[in-house]
């Protein structure tokens, strides 16, 4: 039975792992927790009209030379959630979220935002698994917040969100096949609206990229 507290507990840091998406579907099927706000300090649950952004920093996900994005870049949705940030995020929130993405361990090459995409929440929530009777939804979108990697003592960024695949298994479909379907569907919907990184919020991300190249986002060793 989904209630606010149990839903918040499902996203507790100790429960965040590669099986989070599957566990959510097991314990809170049908996106039951979407009716509650689950994030720490979140401005509230995510409404269908909200716009969400996803940034990619890894050259394995986006080819810096061609700007092509990989389908497998969306794999997080079927494991521990595809991180996105909300349109209502303040510039400070965006700075924090993006600088976390750019954080690299000492001695590693600096990361930069290679691509930024925009999608309306409704587009994700309206995707359905047509191989199952009743065509249930394929994804849930929660106002999930996550622990910071850089300033671990600070509270989570409240305008973070997560997209989770539901792992519904149509008859005759194995899990790896299903996960590929998940990536393919998300790729089509999210990669359709690429945002000009240079123009986004007056060059905010360009500035962060420059700071990253200058070594500003180096993870401390623990």
């Amino acid at each position, binding site marked *: 039975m989904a209630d606010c507290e149990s839903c918040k507990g499902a996203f507790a840091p100790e429960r965040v792992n590669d099986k989070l998406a599957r566990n959510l579907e097991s314990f809170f099927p049908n996106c039951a927790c979407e009716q509650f706000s689950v994030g720490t300090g979140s401005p509230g649950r995510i409404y269908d009209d909200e716009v969400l952004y996803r940034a990619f920093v890894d*050259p394995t996900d986006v080819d810096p030379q061609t700007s092509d994005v990989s389908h*497998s870049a969306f794999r997080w949705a079927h494991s521990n959630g595809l991180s996105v940030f909300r349109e209502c995020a303040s510039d400070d929130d965006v700075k924090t979220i993006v600088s976390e993405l750019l954080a690299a361990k000492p001695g*590693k090459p600096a990361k930069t935002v290679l691509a930024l995409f925009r999608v309306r929440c409704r587009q994700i929530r309206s995707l359905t698994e047509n*191989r199952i009777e009743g065509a249930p939804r394929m994804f849930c979108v929660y106002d999930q917040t996550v622990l910071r990697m850089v300033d671990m003592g600070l509270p989570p960024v409240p305008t973070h969100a997560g997209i989770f695949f539901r792992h519904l298994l149509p008859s005759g479909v194995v899990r790896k*096949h299903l996960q*590929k379907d998940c990536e393919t569907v998300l790729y089509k919907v999210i990669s359709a609206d690429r945002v000009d990184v240079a123009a986004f919020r007056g060059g905010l991300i360009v500035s962060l990229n420059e700071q990253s190249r200058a070594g500003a986002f180096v993870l401390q060793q623990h």
Partner: protein
Amino acid sequence: VTETTSIESTIPQKPGGTALLPLLATGHYDVTFAEWDVTLRVPMSTALNAASSLRACSFLPTVKDARLFCTAAKPDTTTNQLISSGAQTASVNLSFLFDLEAPSKQSSATEHAIARFKTFATYGDDWDDRGARAPNQEAIDGAMQFLSNLQPWHPAPFATIDREGNAIIELNDASTNYFSSIVFNSATHVELYAHRGDRPSAFFEGDVRSNDARHFLSVEMQISLP
């Protein structure tokens, strides 16, 4: 450089039927209907020196130096309607797009994919600073070798790796709503995936040298292994 031409012929009957299509004097084309999509097979015997037995699907035909590189076509809407209403024969227009630069573009794209794999091969554990495994060198070698099987009609390959150390080749053609991928878990163990238009996607996991894998590669990806 592109140009367009079209052919017209009488074709069968019902979904799943086949007919010869006298497209060119030097060869013939088997046309098969399945779910209203046309499949073309170009026989090796054709004097056009087609690289192999090809199936049309979502790929564009390319021609260079009198060599025919694959074909892609669907019957027009009128044909679909005629067939679905039970007509015995129908005339179909198949449109072909010839891309004279496709072979050189594919060669360049393949070289770029190999260069990316070579870069990834230098990655160690935790290459993403989030705990990813180092790429499996045998998997990368297998993927790089596999790239040589791609032909000019294939979409430009996207080379990548995942956090489990697998090497991945993705073939994406947004213009025709086609996507396929080959995940190398090792030099020979693969996961094959293909998605085309509104059709159900297809998946195979096993030895890339097996008959089942070869069949999948041929039918779903138009790839013939040596």
